[in-house]
């Protein structure tokens, strides 16, 4: 092996949200940490100041901040009897790239999962009986509860400066907040964002219908804020160039805005950029890893470390486990093996309506700007007479009015070209508004990840292969919540409805919009069904921790990142408080 670097206490693979959070926690505890990131250094003033950021073509259409498929892509098929093909063009697979990862260009919706989401198996059995899980044999608990997670959610929110209004402080329900959320220690660090025209219409409508609207908790912060690391953030300007874009105002929670200014100054932290980890290298006994092999400037190198943290985003987390030979590949026939098991997605639908006499001013927006109801999310409603479990958050949102992105969002039947398109777009740009249902996704036995037998990345390593289609449970759930969204849209006065129920046809990455890929190296209390223990420590190599949405055994009806960040804090604390002094499994198998 070419170059061996000095040994670190901890090496962290991938400097997105999870990697930055862990590096901060571990260096503060005095450990020597090396972070390795395959993309380049990126910062607010040098790379996405306000003079550069409001550029839809570059950042949204051409996706200049995202990881190109030529670097690495995913292969995909719906069923095992098909031959998977590589995803060649931009699609729902929207991977982070460069320092900050997808955390630099996410939208910022900052959710805690529901108490139910962590214990779907147990709570479903308790409330409805075992038969409610028929056909959902891979549904399993996380090995942690919401209560276990609360302090870590709280810590991540303080770092991120999350804006919002709490609906449940230590059991006290607060109207105006999300009364369905689990009990929180305290309110959000910054107050809720303001309503746009559409949000106030939506809020009033669902309120009249007897539901419980609240402002979405946002990583678009509402006022100046200094976080616990001493970093200053500024108020969101509702610029509407948020998701897929960086933030020039230090207003979007991101590794750049919240963590790196402090982390980079710590002498016990080193960051290797434009350096790609190929895989972890195991000790001869196979029981632990001795470090990671990487490639930089076309040359291979080796970074030795006592602890290896893999924080390369869900897909690459699973891929790196497989490339490193840690754990056993899941087999859908026998249901043996844990790596690749319990992949799931996000079951989404949307209803767009047109309002003849309104001016929505859609360009006033924020990545996480919206009003939501959780009355039909998780198990917040009675499923006794329903033939599915789970649900969706139903939001009226104001994320952007970017004209290229929205050019097909016209009244049904309108031509996409010619004078008819021009007239249609001139009429509808200001008068359309959308409701989005972001739903749970349950694992199925025949949905999984493994290495593709044919296609390789630029370094000749196999790509990850996804085998996925919607399961019956999630399709029924999507139909149910889409009907609810349709009722709301009609009640709000929307006409000529444009409905997109994504689960109504076979999944394919070009027809979907959600970047939320989940599972494949999941946490749990049982080593036969989970890759990681509840501290995200590999059951198979005790000095390897794998942190990301790859650890979720099922998806909640929410965006994933707050839960990723909370799990990262929790894993890092377990490492510096316990593991480092007493290396070994933190939980007995």
């Amino acid at each position, binding site marked *: 092996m070419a170059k061996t670097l000095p040994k670190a206490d901890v090496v962290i693979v991938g400097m997105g949200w999870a990697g930055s959070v862990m590096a901060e926690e571990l260096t503060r505890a005095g450990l020597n940490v090396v972070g390795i990131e395959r993309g*380049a250094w990126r910062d607010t003033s040098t790379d996405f100041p306000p003079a550069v950021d*409001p550029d839809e073509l570059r950042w949204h259409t*051409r996706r200049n901040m995202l990881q*190109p498929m030529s670097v690495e892509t995913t292969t995909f098929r719906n069923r095992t009897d098909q031959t998977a*093909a590589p995803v060649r063009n931009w699609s729902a697979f929207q991977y982070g790239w460069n320092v900050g990862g997808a955390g630099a260009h996410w939208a910022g919706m900052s959710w805690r999962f529901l108490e139910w989401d962590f214990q779907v198996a147990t709570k479903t059995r308790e409330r409805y009986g075992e038969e409610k899980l028929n056909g959902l044999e891979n549904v399993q608990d996380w090995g942690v509860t919401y209560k276990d997670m609360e302090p870590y959610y709280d810590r991540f929110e303080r770092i991120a400066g999350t804006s919002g209004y709490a609906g449940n402080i230590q059991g006290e329900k607060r109207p105006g907040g999300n009364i369905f959320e689990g009990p929180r220690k305290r309110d959000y660090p910054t107050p809720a964002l303001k309503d746009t025209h559409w949000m106030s219409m939506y809020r009033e409508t669902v309120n009249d219908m007897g539901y419980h609207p609240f402002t979405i908790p946002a990583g678009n912060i509402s006022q100046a804020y200094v976080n616990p690391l001493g970093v200053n953030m500024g108020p969101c300007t509702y610029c509407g160039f948020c998701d897929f874009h960086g933030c020039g105002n230090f207003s979007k929670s991101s590794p750049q805005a919240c963590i790196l200014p402090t982390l980079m100054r710590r002498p016990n932290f080193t960051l290797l950029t434009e350096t790609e980890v190929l895989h972890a290298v195991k000790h001869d006994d196979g029981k632990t890893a001795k470090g990671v092999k990487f490639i930089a400037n076309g040359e291979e190198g080796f970074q030795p470390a006592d602890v290896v943290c893999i924080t390369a985003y869900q897909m690459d987390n699973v891929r790196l486990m497989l490339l490193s030979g840690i754990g056993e590949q899941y087999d859908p026939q026998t249901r043996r093996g844990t790596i690749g098991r319990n992949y799931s997605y996000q079951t989404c639908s949307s209803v767009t309506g047109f309002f003849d006499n309104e001016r929505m*001013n859609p360009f006033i927006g924020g990545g996480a700007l919206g009003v939501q109801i959780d009355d039909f999310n998780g198990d917040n409603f009675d499923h006794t007479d329903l033939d599915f479990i789970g649900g969706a958050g139903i939001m009226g949102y104001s994320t952007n009015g970017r004209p290229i992105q929205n*050019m097909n969002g016209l009244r049904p039947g309108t031509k996409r070209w010619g004078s008819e398109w021009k007239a249609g777009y001139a009429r509808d740009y200001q008068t359309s508004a959308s409701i989005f249902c972001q739903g749970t996704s349950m694992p199925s036995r025949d949905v999984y990840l493994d290495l593709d037998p044919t296609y390789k990345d630029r370094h000749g390593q196999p790509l990850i292969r996804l085998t996925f289609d919607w399961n019956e449970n999630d399709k029924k759930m999507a139909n149910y919540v889409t009907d609810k969204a349709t009722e709301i849209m009609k009640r709000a006065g929307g006409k000529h409805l444009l409905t997109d129920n994504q689960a109504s046809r076979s999944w394919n990455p070009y027809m979907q919009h959600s970047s939320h890929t989940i599972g494949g190296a999941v946490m749990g209390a049982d080593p036969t069904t989970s890759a990681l223990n509840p501290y995200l420590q590999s059951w198979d190599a005790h000095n390897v921790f794998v942190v990301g949405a790859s650890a979720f055994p099922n998806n909640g009806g929410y965006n994933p990142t707050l839960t990723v960040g909370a799990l990262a804090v929790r894993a890092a604390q377990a490492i510096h408080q316990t593991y480092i002094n007493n290396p070994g499994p933190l939980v007995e198998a």
Partner: protein
Amino acid sequence: MNRREALRSLGALTASVTVAPYVGANQLKNVPLETALSEDSLPRPARVDGFSVLVEDSDRKTLAAAFDRLIPADDYGPSATEAGCLEFLDDQLAGDYGAGKALYLQAPLKPENEEALMGSPQFLATPKERYATGVKALEAYAQKAHGKAFADLSDDQIDEILTGLEAGDISLGDDVDGQAFFELMLQNVREGYLADPMYGGNRGMAGWKMVGFPGARYDYRPYIDRRGEDLGLIPVSLIPQD
């Protein structure tokens, strides 16, 4: 030099520097001290020195004829070519987009399988290569069907061809997927009409005025409470055309 020229010359400078866009692997300790806008992140305005991909006059005429039916001049604004969409396309094809730099272009590609899985045809050809074959195929089709150059067809004849391509009813031969080429043109022409004018299209911010998009503004705090009002905002470009 005004701001626009200054940015142009900066863009040209970075384009002519021979080093790779990335400085290469780095070991970073502390926050890098450089705080000026990095070369990678500078805006890259469209070149203004003539066509460099669509170099053949006949090809430009064919494309112009198609583009101006996709976006004709009317009460809602100028036509695609009046708004600069050909210049926009040429610049895009000359750069990373045209070269398919972001795409995964490794073989094998089994067309039926990939189309079935992905819901639309997939290609190993780059956008630049697809235009090269697509434009010639359009012209050949016009000659075969009407005995005339595509650019000399009537509006109705062109509309009929575009409609047929969109529906998949017209074949442009074995080498060009007509429906997919229609989608590519439609995507790019509308991008040109609606992207920031610094990329060569959307002249006079015509596309933005058509819908009422205020452009590259960055602070709506003074406006968010004025719900449902006509805010009368004049659009602005990242690099104003003054």
